[in-house]
């Protein structure tokens, strides 16, 4: 997953802007999708995408590899999202909007009717997922959407691997409970 990232960071630090563009192309999807599921809002996820890569541009020198760029990047995203969630709670503005509002879902192949079923199923899943406690949600999103291994999730969240497992098991159990009546 991190193949070549370290080299691109090195090139960027030597002033190669194309290397920065390449890092953006490789990782913007992961950054956006994580922020999108943490915040439940497409516009805010775009803001976080921009802020995150600006932070990368400014602090690429503090990245310590090897092979950890993706997790380093997702840590930045996570901190930005948690700050936003804190601010949102401080304003007492709880977002109740459905997670799929105004967002394009790019279905991976399949027939159109099958895609529609998948999108509908995903919408129901996400409506429940977005209501999980932050810690469970971030762990599960990193697992299911970013396809990170437990070890990598532990790195992003800065907790022991066993804590990650517990968070994910609890999140799945909670989702099973919430979605059970809807089937």
């Amino acid at each position, binding site marked *: 997953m991190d193949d070549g990232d370290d080299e691109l960071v090195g090139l960027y630090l030597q002033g190669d802007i194309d290397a920065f563009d390449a890092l953006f192309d490789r990782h913007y*999807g992961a950054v956006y999708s994580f922020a999108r599921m943490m915040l439940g809002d497409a516009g805010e996820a775009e803001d976080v995408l921009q802020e995150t890569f600006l932070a990368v541009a400014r602090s690429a020198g503090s990245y310590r590899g090897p092979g950890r760029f993706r997790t380093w990047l997702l840590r930045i995203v996570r901190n930005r999202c948690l700050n936003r969630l804190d601010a949102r709670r401080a304003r007492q503005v709880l977002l109740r909007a459905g997670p799929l509002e105004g*967002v394009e879902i790019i279905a991976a192949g399949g027939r159109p009717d099958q895609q529609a079923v998948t999108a509908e199923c995903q919408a129901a*899943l996400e409506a429940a997922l977005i209501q999980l406690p932050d810690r469970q949600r971030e762990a599960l999103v990193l697992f299911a959407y970013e396809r990170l291994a437990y070890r990598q999730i532990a790195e992003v969240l800065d907790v022991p691997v066993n804590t990650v497992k517990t968070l994910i098991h609890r999140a799945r159990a*909670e989702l099973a409970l919430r979605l059970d009546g809807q089937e």
Partner: protein
Amino acid sequence: MDCPFDDESLAAYAAGELSAEGAQPVEAHLAECDPCRHRVKALRRVDAALARVVPHRPAAGGLLNVRRALAGQLRTAGPEVLTLEEVAELLRLGPAEMDEVAGELPAFELAGRVRVRRAKLTEWIEQRESRFQSAAEGHRVARSLRLHSERNAS
């Protein structure tokens, strides 16, 4: 029934993360507990749905906006710490001209290399700007005084 397994254990079981020894008592319990069997089924449905999720991607327009904004910010931002080559490029100075100002730059040494913080460089440029402006102002005053005295003399 008083179940010996909590949600977390059932979730670990459903994900296939228990060892054979760990899974065996769970299986024995499931054989005789309808509610737990139902919970494991629900967990597996969730896992199947999670395995099929399609990550969200930004809409094309939004992505373009982010790219543009970043390109604009990068032109002015870039890394916080600059090399002398980057400073020369920013100041649009050649090597000989850089040598002239090198001693005045707000630089520091790190592992045998000379580096300049972008913020300090900006401050340094601003100081020179105000020096230049006051020098230009002084020059203008001097010039007008000189004109004045020349006129008086004539």
